[in-house]
Every structure is written in structure tokens, then in C-alpha cells.
């Protein structure tokens, strides 16, 4: 069985969604399975309507946000979303939505982007993380 990388995605800003998608890509490239658990702001970034148009950046680096976005655009860096999508095409990447966040904010599975595979409780995710080689919280 392939080794696994688990990522808990709590943040919903573009600067933090990039490392999520790039690390997932790297793990897939190196033959690992990836499980991503979206919770709170992380889940908030995966709505069907806004997943591709999100421009939020971390408050603590707000002063650099426009510069970084401009450089990324100039250098034609693929979006974090497209990067994650490619990782999914290439390997075994499963994206789970936190059931507690869904219930709390009355979010329907249908309003989430198709890249999200299923809804999962924290207990099941911890079991997944327990069997992972690497677990990250972003």
C-alpha cells in the first residue's frame, strides 16, 4: 500500500492554498496517496461559485499580496486550484469536507466544488491521519 500524506486545511487564503496544492502534487509525484481534510476557512474556499475567484491573502502579509499576485500572473503560475486538480488527475488524492463545518454553517454538499470527494467526520479523518507518514496542518 502506498504511503500517505494527510493535510488538514484550516486556512482559506490563496497564499496558504498554494502550499496545499503544491505539497499534494509533490506527494503524488513521489508515489504517495493524499488525504485532504477541509475545515472552516479551508472549506469556505471550496464553494463551487468562488473556488476559482478567491483572491484572499493572509492579513499578516497583506502589504506584499498585490506584488505576489502580480508576479504569479506575469510568470503564468497555474492557480492553486488547477494545480490541485492536476495532482488529482495524476494520483490518488481524496478531498474530504469536515462534517462539523457543514452542519454548523448549514452548507450543502451540492454547493461545494466537484473537486471535493465526500463529507467526513473528524474521527474518521484522524484514523486516516494515524495511518499517514506525514500529517500537516495548514
Amino acid at each position, binding site marked *: 500500500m502506498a504511503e500517505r500524506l494527510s493535510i488538514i486545511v484550516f486556512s482559506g487564503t490563496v497564499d496558504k492554498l498554494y502550499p496545499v496544492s*503544491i505539497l499534494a*502534487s*509533490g506527494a503524488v*509525484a*513521489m*508515489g504517495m496517496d493524499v488525504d485532504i481534510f477541509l475545515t472552516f476557512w479551508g472549506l469556505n474556499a471550496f464553494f463551487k461559485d468562488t473556488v476559482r475567484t478567491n483572491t484572499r491573502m493572509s492579513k499578516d502579509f497583506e502589504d506584499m499580496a498585490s506584488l505576489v499576485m502580480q508576479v504569479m500572473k506575469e*510568470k*503564468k*503560475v*497555474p492557480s492553486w486550484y488547477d494545480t490541485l486538480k*492536476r*495532482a488529482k488527475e*495524476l494520483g490518488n488524492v481524496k478531498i474530504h469536507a469536515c462534517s462539523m463545518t457543514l452542519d454548523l454553517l448549514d452548507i450543502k454538499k451540492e454547493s461545494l466544488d466537484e473537486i471535493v470527494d465526500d463529507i467526513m467526520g473528524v474521527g474518521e479523518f484522524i484514523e486516516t491521519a494515524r495511518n499517514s507518514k506525514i500529517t500537516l496542518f495548514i
Partner: protein
Amino acid sequence: MGEEPKVDRLIDARNTFCPGPLMELIRAIREAKVGEIIGVLSSDTGSKRDIPLWVSKAGHKLIGIYEKAGYAEIVVQKMK
């Protein structure tokens, strides 16, 4: 590294960023037949380490890394 081998497929991944060139190579290797030689052009610094690491882990063969002006050509043979 002597004379450069002739490649069956050439992927131009210049101006893409880590892990772009590696991902492009993996995709090409999947599509290729065993024995085919694939060249990747990459201007990303990480590729020169990432790609050889992946190649040995995946059981393929690194033919060579050829430095050019502002990029490198990394040549790999699909072994299985």
C-alpha cells in the same frame, strides 16, 4: 556528459514552476512505451534534484542533465 542522446519525446516545461516540470514528465512517462527516451526542458531549479530523485524511485533511468542557456535538458528513459 558526452554527446546528447536523441529523444523520442521532448517536453518544453520552461517557465513553469516546481513541481510543474516533474508533473509533466510523469504524465509523459505514463503515456510513453518502455524504452522511450524523454527529454524535459526546465528552467526551474528544483527540477534538477527532484527529477533524478523521482526517476530512481520510480525505477527509470536518468540519461543525463544537459545545461543550456537559462535552462536544463533532463533526459530520462522509461524502463518499465
